[in-house]
């Protein structure tokens, strides 16, 4: 079972909140924001994703 599913199933509260899914979504959205900034030609930096990216739950 994935870390995401495990976190979702710790307790009724984490299941109701979807803790693992919520965390993975935060990570996904953070990484998507970094990719968007890298692709934005109106922004100087192009190393947002490479320097500030966060590993998926499953990669830990």
């Amino acid at each position, binding site marked *: 079972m994935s870390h995401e599913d495990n976190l979702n199933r710790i307790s009724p509260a984490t299941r109701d909140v979807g803790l693992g899914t919520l965390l993975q979504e935060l990570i996904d959205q953070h990484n998507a924001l970094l990719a968007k*900034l890298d692709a934005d030609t109106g922004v100087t930096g192009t190393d947002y994703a490479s*320097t500030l990216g966060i590993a998926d739950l499953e990669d830990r």
Partner: protein
Amino acid sequence: MELDLLNRSYPAMARAKLGDVLQELIDKRNALLEKLDADVLVNGANYAETLWAITDNPHIPADTAAPTLTSATIGTDGKTLTLVFDETTLTSASGDYEGFVLNVDEDTSALSAPVRTNGTLVFTCVEVASGAVCTLDYTGADIKDMAGNALDAITGAAVTNQSTVE
């Protein structure tokens, strides 16, 4: 907040390193805000000031040190005064960064409306000739760092004059 506790609370949390994940999210989000502030092509300059996460984290030592001026330089064009501070993010309640006075030989000149980048204020000043002796004064409580520590008054700080104007 002791996030490390979450690494040990349940086996599932330990396997996912929940505390580490949350801390990394917080740290990298805050780092992103600083990077956006530092990006000169991004219009906003207050990402970190307004969106910093977990400001009340007791494990982050409180910053009680006032920002200090580390260098003041007249550029080679004689019209640019660059002030560098030891903190990357300064705020001004008025937004004007007022209170600085440049002393050039016997004359004084008030400075206002600098261009601000990380920890640096760049003013347009009266033309300063090569060899002129310059000092800087600052009075006021308007300029503060991220923790709210005000810049102390500055009196007669040495200004490096790199002007090549004759």
